[in-house]
């Protein structure tokens, strides 16, 4: 096929460009696989890069699940601290670091919900696991997708969110962005391929 590898390469480049523009300006890390491996080795700079990459995702998930800024801040802090302390348990071979971290966040969110609830059912480990699965339902996917679309980097992210989140027609997008229709369609197709590739990583991890 060959198409998969090519598209994955494109999406990584787009991500790095986005990071280069906005946040990790001085990051010495050439790509995310390198960051993941560096994190597993205990490189603090990798923790910082990881935080930049997924803290908004973790915080948004927590805030939507818990409905409280303060609780979401606690969960976010606990998630990254737990990830660092438990980094020996992360295996880069099994999937990307961000997916592993979101797994930790889900458990922290479930813990926070359980602590609030006086419901004895959540006391047992099995019930807690069920709770975790619940947190990771449809709502979770919506936030993950928003994160992944944003991670595509512009113009792909802009075109994809206009098409799918805002429901604009391709012709409408072409007109608004002053972009040839063929380019719009190409961005959408390539965006979908990149999203599909990245989405598989979430499935593996959860």
């Amino acid at each position: 096929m060959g198409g998969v590898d090519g598209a994955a390469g494109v999406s990584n480049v787009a991500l790095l460009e986005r990071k280069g523009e906005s946040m990790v300006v001085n990051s010495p890390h050439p790509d995310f696989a390198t960051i993941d491996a560096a994190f597993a080795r205990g490189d603090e700079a990798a923790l910082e890069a990881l935080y930049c990459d997924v803290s908004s995702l973790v915080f948004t998930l927590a805030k939507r699940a818990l409905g409280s800024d303060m609780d979401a801040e606690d969960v976010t802090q606990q998630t990254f601290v737990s990830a660092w302390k438990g980094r020996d348990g992360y295996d880069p071979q099994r999937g990307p670091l961000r997916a592993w971290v979101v797994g930790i966040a889900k458990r922290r969110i479930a813990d926070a919900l359980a602590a609030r609830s006086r419901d004895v059912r959540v006391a047992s480990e099995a019930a807690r696991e069920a709770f975790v699965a619940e947190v990771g339902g449809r709502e979770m996917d919506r936030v993950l997708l928003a994160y992944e679309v944003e991670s595509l980097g512009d113009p792909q992210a802009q075109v994809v969110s206009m098409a799918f989140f805002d429901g604009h027609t391709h012709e409408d997008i072409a007109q608004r962005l002053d972009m040839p229709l063929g380019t719009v369609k190409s961005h959408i197709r390539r965006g979908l391929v990149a999203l599909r590739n990245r989405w598989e990583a979430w499935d593996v991890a959860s």
Partner: protein
Amino acid sequence: MSHLDDDVLAGFAVGEARDRSSSEHLAQCADCRARAEDFARLVTGLTDGGERVTLESPPEHVWRGVRSEVITFEADSRGGVDGLPRVALLSSKRRKVRTWSAGWVAGAAATAGVVGGIGGTLWLSGITSAPGETTVASAPLADLATEASAGQAHVEVRDDGTRVLVVDTDYSQVADASIEVWMIDTEVEGMISLGYLSSDHGEFVIPSGFDYSAYPIVDISIEPNDGNPAHSGESITRGILGL
């Protein structure tokens, strides 16, 4: 016919026209059908009609909290730095966030070395400072964020036997927070709050019977005015009393 390209399958998922050979291949090839279904599911997920999700970044203090906990954790797991007691490692939260330099844990650990070293060498026990009071222990203070010198603290015993911790440091007000003075043990486990600093000079009576020599770390922290009496972990200044 070879398998259909991802790009083509993605196009089908958003309604692009299928040519005849592609349609025929899809009808025969389970692998391509499965991939086509992946794209269809993805499009369904993207267009589920729910309210649009906007990602929100956590406030900056969350990162400071993460860093502070990590620094403490690393110091503990290394059993202290260079054999020095595990002090001055609770946090240096005021250190500028997002410096993007590698090695901030090592940097904070170095601060511990500086504070520990100075505390060990400048030992001013027994120096008489003024009539009616005797200095029995003293500590240079260091700003944990900059590692710069930040004044001095000493314990003096007054004529009536009262023991007083005297702190001279640069005081600046912090919004919605107070500056609290602590004495902490070398394990950074036990601690006692002596009160709040409200100017460059503060004098705090050490409760009688309290063995301050077991709590030689003078620690000044920022405490949010939230009613929580525990140490915030946000230490700004430290020194170790030479006893």
